[in-house]
């Protein structure tokens, strides 16, 4: 009987610093066939562990379409993320997953997509954005609205440039008032207000929203005002999870186990949950 808590051994292929305290790892499987056998869906998450420090939960930031590696982005905060910060290229860390459900991208085929992300919450959306862009023709027009506190806090700066350059993607980036630098070309304002201005027409459009709780709290009503029905709005919850397998009883909001039935939920499902997150 195999041990469900046993992580894959990964080593760090590459790392890039996205913003102060935020870093992205590109992980390759130490063991080849494990790597080849490994599959995951966009929107799923995993538990990354530093041996000696512990495990921590964040999403798989790369798209399933990219085969031989997975990426993850984390901000230096607690014990495990500090330990991750101390790792160098070539070091070994553990990864358990993939867990949780996925963004139902098949259901969105033929529809417009609008991605709304705030601050450090772009990584979960990045996975699904790249997934959709790799199957670009399946979707009508794609809008990305991404805001952060300051210009320096914007993550995946080079990919933002790439998306901006593409003509089949409409990228809107904004920074909170006061966070802009002299040569900042994007918008200035909080994400909810920018969404109100630049969001595409709501019919036949799927909205995918992800950000800190206060951003979610103000963005959902705006989308509703713009006509997005609750079942057309998807989000992913980064709740505190420990085992990722529904055993440790940590991640429940009401009777929903975020690690089993989430982390991707529709706004409708969220509204039914008790206010406990």
């Amino acid at each position, binding site marked *: 009987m195999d041990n469900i808590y046993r992580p894959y051994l990964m080593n760090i292929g590459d790392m890039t610093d996205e913003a102060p305290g935020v870093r992205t790892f590109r992980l390759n499987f130490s063991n080849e066939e494990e790597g080849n056998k490994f599959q995951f869906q966009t929107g799923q998450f995993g538990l990354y562990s530093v041996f000696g420090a*512990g495990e921590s939960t964040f999403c798989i930031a790369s798209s399933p379409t990219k085969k031989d590696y997975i990426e993850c982005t984390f901000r230096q905060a*607690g*014990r495990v993320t*500090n330990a991750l910060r101390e790792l160098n290229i070539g070091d070994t860390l553990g990864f358990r997953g993939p867990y949780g459900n996925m963004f139902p991208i098949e259901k969105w085929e033929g529809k417009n997509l609008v991605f709304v992300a705030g601050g450090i919450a772009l990584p979960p959306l990045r996975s699904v954005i790249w997934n959709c862009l790799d199957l670009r023709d399946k979707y009508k027009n794609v809008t990305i609205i991404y805001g952060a506190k300051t210009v320096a806090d914007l993550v995946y700066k080079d990919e933002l440039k790439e998306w901006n350059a593409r003509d089949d993607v409409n990228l809107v980036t904004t920074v909170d008032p006061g966070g802009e630098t002299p040569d900042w070309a994007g918008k200035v304002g909080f994400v909810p207000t920018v969404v109100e201005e630049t969001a595409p027409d709501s019919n036949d459009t799927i909205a995918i929203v992800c950000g800190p709780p206060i951003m979610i709290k103000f963005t959902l009503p705006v989308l509703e005002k713009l006509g997005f029905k609750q079942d057309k709005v998807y989000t992913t919850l980064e709740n505190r999870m420990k085992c990722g397998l529904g055993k440790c009883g940590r991640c429940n909001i009401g009777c929903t186990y975020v690690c089993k039935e989430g982390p991707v939920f529709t706004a409708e499902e969220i509204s039914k949950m008790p206010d406990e997150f």
Partner: protein
Amino acid sequence: MIEELRKKAEELLRSDTVKVVFGYGEGSTPERTRPVFITKPEDVNKLTWNKYCVYNLTTYLKRQETRKLGKPAIIVKGCDAKTIIVLLKECQIKREDVYVLGVTCDGVGEPLATKCKACDVNTPRIYDDLVGEKIENKEIPFDERYAELDEYEKLSEKEKWDFWQKQFAKCIKCYACSSICPLCFCDRCIVDKNQPQWIDPSAHPRGNLSWNVTRAYHLAGRCINCEECQRVCPVDIPLNLLNKKLAKETEKNFKYRSGYNIDDELAMSTYKEEDNQDFFK
């Protein structure tokens, strides 16, 4: 006694000097009482007083939920009143924020709790109002107060180690001992600090030893020997022996008894030139 308590509680609530009364109510069995929080004058008859009121109610001064209920009147026995003195000295409460309703007591617990066998605080040493007639506090000599330790101190080193290892092995790290203790009021306890993790959270012998030793040490010169930690331990570890040993050493070396005198300095926060140093080479 009960009538007097209820009358006084009702007065306090009606005159709005306090918002809530922390008292003892019937428990789920006749031999048990539980803490009750009376906010409305008409509920005062829930209060009771008998020899099963072992609970140290001052522990609710540290919890945010019960603090939000407003200025409390706390029913305290002599031993519990000592906690008030320590909490005042450690800036956790202000004297005007607490109404101390003292009760004279000649022993609680069935069979009689060990702390009551050598009790010298039948009448609380600090109170705003007293229920029950004053009993003269006896002067109990040093050895009698710490008699309970003698049999353990006589053990050989190996016997001591084996005894405590057997006890600590039972520990399940439920932290009832530190949650019940009125003087364990750190929001984030040292056990919860994981950068670095000084004390292993796991309940194996190594983690249990470092937890129990550290918990006892952090109460050195502070613990007032209310024996709640020992009462609430689900696996029945004699925790108060550790605290009593530290209290004995503090009194022997620094002539300091915790919770007896409001103005002398806390034992572990000061020093004297002539402190004992015979074990220094």
